[in-house]
């Protein structure tokens, strides 16, 4: 009896140890099942239909062409594989150009009939109106709008998820925004991080190190909103003044704040790597008459190279995934960045800013999960790489 009881307790321990692995697997399942869904979803704005006259041979139009039609770049059905006729665009937004208020009724109660007549009588029309106004015995046919392809998702230059009539979901500006901000952050954090790590591990008196270490840890513990707040009240105005800009919320502000946040990661891992270099290496070098700096430069750092690299990579991972601070200081304009003095928008900031407004289960919602997948994959790969490097080092 006692033995069974013990077995159960050990079983509980074993079960608990599987929770983290299970969570990672669940994250993958939930993120990807929602994220991949975006590639099966019509790009047309939810709750709306595109219709044409029954005689029109065109049955499907892709999202880019629809945007071009609404922008007047495509004006002839021939360009879409139809007859040589001009496209007569009927959009619900321009309703007053076609029907008077009396004709459609004050609550649009006659819109159904109007649409039916209009589409029936105009062979060259392309009508865009709410699905709820689709008449019951409709004398036209619905146009199928294709879903976005992976290629267009990755290469698309516009992120306009609530654009009408078709959502533009190009991830390129967000991807570049994330890379710019993170790269800037690492370039700023790297010299300071390395200097700090070398100083703490090799140069500083143990008592100085005892003070520095908790300070670095504290820097890691400060919440990201507080960094964002600090960036907003100190760094953003400073950049605005220094560079005479209209707005201080720029990629540079993001890089500086992220740089400070990535510092502790770089310092602590690089310091560990340097301290793990066996003392015999140092002693051998010093015995040869090398100075302390020569020993650090030629012996210690090369030996600790892979560990230091791991710290840098992990710092990049931290910077790429950081949400709130970046959201608060980068200005969040979804443009392809050209300079560090422009507002940019990163992937995590986009998710945080837009998930609240995206309707549950819609295209926009799924697209944000797809962004989450990108983020997850990226940090996962960096993480696994770092652990392999650190492990190899330990085995040695």
């Amino acid at each position, binding site marked *: 009896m006692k033995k069974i009881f013990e077995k159960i307790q050990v079983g509980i321990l074993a079960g608990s140890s599987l929770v983290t692995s299970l969570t990672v697997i669940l*994250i993958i399942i939930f993120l990807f099942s929602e994220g991949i869904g975006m590639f099966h979803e019509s790009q047309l704005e939810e709750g709306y239909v595109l219709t044409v006259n029954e005689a029109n041979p065109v049955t499907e139009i892709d999202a880019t062409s629809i945007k071009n039609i609404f922008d007047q770049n495509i004006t002839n059905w021939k360009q879409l594989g139809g007859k040589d006729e001009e496209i007569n665009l009927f959009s619900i937004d321009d309703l007053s150009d076609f029907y008077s208020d009396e004709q459609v009724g004050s609550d649009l109660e006659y819109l159904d009939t109007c649409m039916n007549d209009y589409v029936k009588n105009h062979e060259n029309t392309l009508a865009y109106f709410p699905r709820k106004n689709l008449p019951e015995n409709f004398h036209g046919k619905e146009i199928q709008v294709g879903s976005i392809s992976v290629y267009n998702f990755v290469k698309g230059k516009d992120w306009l998820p609530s654009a009408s009539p078709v959502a533009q979901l190009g991830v390129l500006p967000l991807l570049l925004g994330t890379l710019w901000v993170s790269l800037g952050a690492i370039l700023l954090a790297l010299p300071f991080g390395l200097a700090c790590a070398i100083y703490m591990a090799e140069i500083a008196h143990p008592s100085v190190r005892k003070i520095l270490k908790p300070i670095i*840890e504290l820097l890691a*513990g400060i919440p*990201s909103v*507080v960094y964002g707040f600090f960036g907003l009240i100190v760094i953003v105005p400073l950049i605005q003044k220094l560079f005479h800009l209209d707005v201080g919320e720029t990629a540079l502000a993001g890089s500086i704040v992220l740089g400070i946040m990535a510092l502790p990661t770089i310092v602590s891992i690089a310091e560990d790597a340097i301290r793990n270099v066996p003392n015999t290496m140092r002693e051998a070098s010093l015995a040869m008459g090398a100075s302390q700096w020569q020993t650090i430069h030629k012996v210690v750092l090369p030996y600790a190279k892979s560990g230091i690299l791991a710290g840098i990579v992990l710092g990049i991972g931290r910077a790429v995934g950081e949400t709130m601070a970046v959201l608060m200081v980068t200005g969040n304009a979804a443009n392809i960045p050209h300079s560090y003095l422009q507002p940019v928008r990163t992937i*995590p900031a986009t998710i945080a800013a837009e998930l609240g407004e995206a309707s*549950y289960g819609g295209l926009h919602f799924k697209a944000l*999960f797809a962004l989450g997948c990108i983020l997850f994959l990226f940090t996962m790969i960096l*993480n696994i790489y770092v*652990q392999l490097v650190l492990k190899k080092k330990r085995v040695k």
Partner: protein
Amino acid sequence: MNKKALTQQIIFWTFRIMSIMVVIVLFAILYFITIRGAQAISWDFLTKSPEEGMVKGGIFPAIIGTLYLIVGSLIFAFPIGVFSGIYLNEYLKDGKLKSFIQLMTNNLAGVPSIVFGLFGMALFVNRLHFGDSILAGSLTLGLLVLPIIIRTTEESLKSVDDSYRLASYAMGATKLYTIKKVVLPLAFPNVITGIILSIGRVSGETAAILFTVAAYFLPKLPHSIFDQVMALPYHLYVLTTSGTNIEASRPVAYGTAFVLVFIVLVTNVIANLIRNYFNKKYKA
């Protein structure tokens, strides 16, 4: 002084100055937030609800909300984390399974918090129909801090000398009994540091609670675990970016930031004190 020594002096001083600059940055952040934040702190600020469009009044509901989330996430993460740490260190032998679990735990630690938010929303809020609630937020935050607790538990168990275990076995105690009565009591102070650090992390975490529990404004306190709550970090975010009157609510924002930094500072100091005390006691 010869050239070699001179170069070394220059380089070492460069490193020293750069390290000092890092320290200055930290103190600049603390200074800005403490100086103006401390002025906003008063008894009313800590015990009253926000008033007049969050320009006046206090942050009481946000403090209570954050407390709920700390307790909620730890109820879940503490036992699982400690059990998991015990199993990894005491039972599992070095091998493929152990390194797989450790790899996954470290991966989970590296997942960005916004991804936790997405996951928590998809699983707890939508699939399990908890809605935006303390329950959903606590579970999400619990998973987020789980790796911290596992790691500190593992490390503190590792630091218990094997002679204690062997002595217990020699007395005829079983393995489980030894862990319960000998190993855990010795390691416990260090296990606590993991929990304290988790408290700091949970109270500052924003992205993970955006879509799982956090409320923009709620004047009343929650009644059940299926209610939404306000939380300190989200409140600070709201005050600085989307409040009704951002300029006028600055003092409240400073005050909120101060409370957050204060929590992190205190948890860090306590964790360090325990660690130092523990290390002295058992490693001497």
